[in-house]
């Protein structure tokens, strides 16, 4: 198998604007401190961690919304770590992101059709409205949703629009950042099984970021555990659940509340 994405020695620090002195630069906080991993074509990798682990920052760095302070990101053999926005543009069609909060990630004053067609038009895709309709069908939303605005839909429906926007470009790689954490249980199950089906049908490679190991267990072949900006575990799913090695993994496992009376309460 070939690696679609390869990350080596990734560091990222951002200025801490809360502690910016009156004059001069703000002190920088180190969020990612040397992260190495690779994702093979067709793999579904779960990236898990508690709050402050740096998982969302990592998600944004993978699609180059953020530029790494050190280290490299290779996408399909090409180093994209420091490419300019203009140089990245043609590549952008190939890696997409689905965001955590579907309300804020969909432009409230655009219709669903505009939201999905926007990226298609940017990449000169032929027949954008056909592709938009196809994508709506693929995520199980009828054509009648095309003219709606985001606030006229439920959370689950909005997140499906987010997925439709990402897959309409027919990318190779998708980063999904906590995409079900704001949804109801039933929408969560729906969105996950939808994603599972699409990944299989379209042969996508997926990085699925979440704080919830239960959700990741269902979807992913391999799990990467992130703690304070470092990878503490990177192993096949079954192994992570059966023989967790890192303390952070055990803590995340212990924090899961199973829907069963008694079983795991007194740990």
């Amino acid at each position, binding site marked *: 198998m070939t690696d679609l994405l390869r990350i080596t020695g990734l560091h990222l620090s951002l200025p801490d604007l809360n502690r910016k002195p009156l004059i001069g630069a703000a002190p920088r906080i180190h969020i990612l401190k040397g992260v190495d991993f690779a994702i093979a074509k067709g793999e579904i990798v779960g990236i898990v961690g508690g709050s402050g682990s740096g998982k969302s920052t990592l998600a*944004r760095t993978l*699609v180059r*919304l953020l530029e790494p302070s050190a280290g490299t990101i290779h996408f399909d053999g090409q180093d994209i770590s420091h490419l300019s*926005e203009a140089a*990245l*543009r*043609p590549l*952008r*069609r190939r*890696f*997409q*992101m689905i*965001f*955590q*909060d579907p309300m*804020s*990630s*969909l*432009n*409230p*004053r*655009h219709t669903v059709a505009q939201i999905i067609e*926007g*990226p298609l038009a*940017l*990449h000169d895709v032929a027949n954008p409205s056909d592709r938009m309709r196809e994508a709506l069908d693929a995520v199980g939303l009828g054509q009648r949703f095309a003219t709606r*605005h985001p*606030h*006229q839909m439920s959370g689950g429906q909005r997140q499906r629009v987010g997925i439709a*926007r990402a897959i309409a*470009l027919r990318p190779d790689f998708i980063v999904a950042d906590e995409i079900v954490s704001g949804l109801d249980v039933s929408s969560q199950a729906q969105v996950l099984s939808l994603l599972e089906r699409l990944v299989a049908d379209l042969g996508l490679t997926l990085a699925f970021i979440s704080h919830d190991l239960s959700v990741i267990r269902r979807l992913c072949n391999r799990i990467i555990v992130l703690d304070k900006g470092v990878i503490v575990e990177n192993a096949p799913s079954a192994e992570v659940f059966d023989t967790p090695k890192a303390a952070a993994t055990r803590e995340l496992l212990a924090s899961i509340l199973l829907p069963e009376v008694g079983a795991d309460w007194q740990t």
Partner: protein
Amino acid sequence: MADARALVHRRAGLRLWLSAGWIALVAAAALLAPWIAPHDPLAQDLFLGRLPPFWMEGTEPGYWLGTDSLGRDVLSRILHGARIALIVAVIAGTLTCLIGATLGLLAGFLRGWVDLVISRLIDIWMAFPPVLFSILLIAVLGPGLTSIIIAIVVIDWTRFARVVRAEAMAQGAMDYVASARVAGRTRIGTMLREILPNVLPTIVVLLTLEMGIAVIVEAILSFVNLSISTDDPTWGGMIAEGRTSVHQAWWVLVFPLVTLFLTVLAFSQLGEGLKDRYDPVLQ
């Protein structure tokens, strides 16, 4: 939900129609003043001085809202005054909006040094006392319509710039902007296609407020005799003249004042009404 929304909608509709109706009336007066005004607004007749409005004793037919101390017809002067008021409102309002909103949008979305320069400029600008600033400006430029418009634009663009900047900054932090970047949209493209539609409702509300403010500013400058030549009737000029004889002829002061008040109110309500009616997020 449906019914609660319908209620809001009806109220919004009424507000929109009342304010748009009044402004249409003022606009009609401005356009048609020479034909519909019953008298020449400048014609003086000392024998017809201080005639009261039509429902009081001692009126003269045809002078519906009475006359001022020089015998000029108040109604005709109000109708002609609408011209200056409206020209100032539309031209000054639009120019202020274009300049202020553009700078605000650039500062709020692009951030960095653009924001630094524009924000400091706004800070410095706002430290000038506006009334003195405008009087000073007109003293330099000389009185006249153009000077008034320039004064309003120069002073009030910061109002737009500040609000639009804050709004653009808040919108810029939303994930739909990040999503546009992931899709490969350029910075300017994102600003125009993603951010602008979201700050537009705010801009419309500010624009109509500004039109109302422009009418007031013109009136104030007329009041202190810094506006158009004293011959042309303006609402502010009429209020200034009416003030001196308020005890003998209150109507000379009150009618232009009420017209001014209603027009400014209508402008501010128009913006809110338009927003309630046409903003897709509120539908």
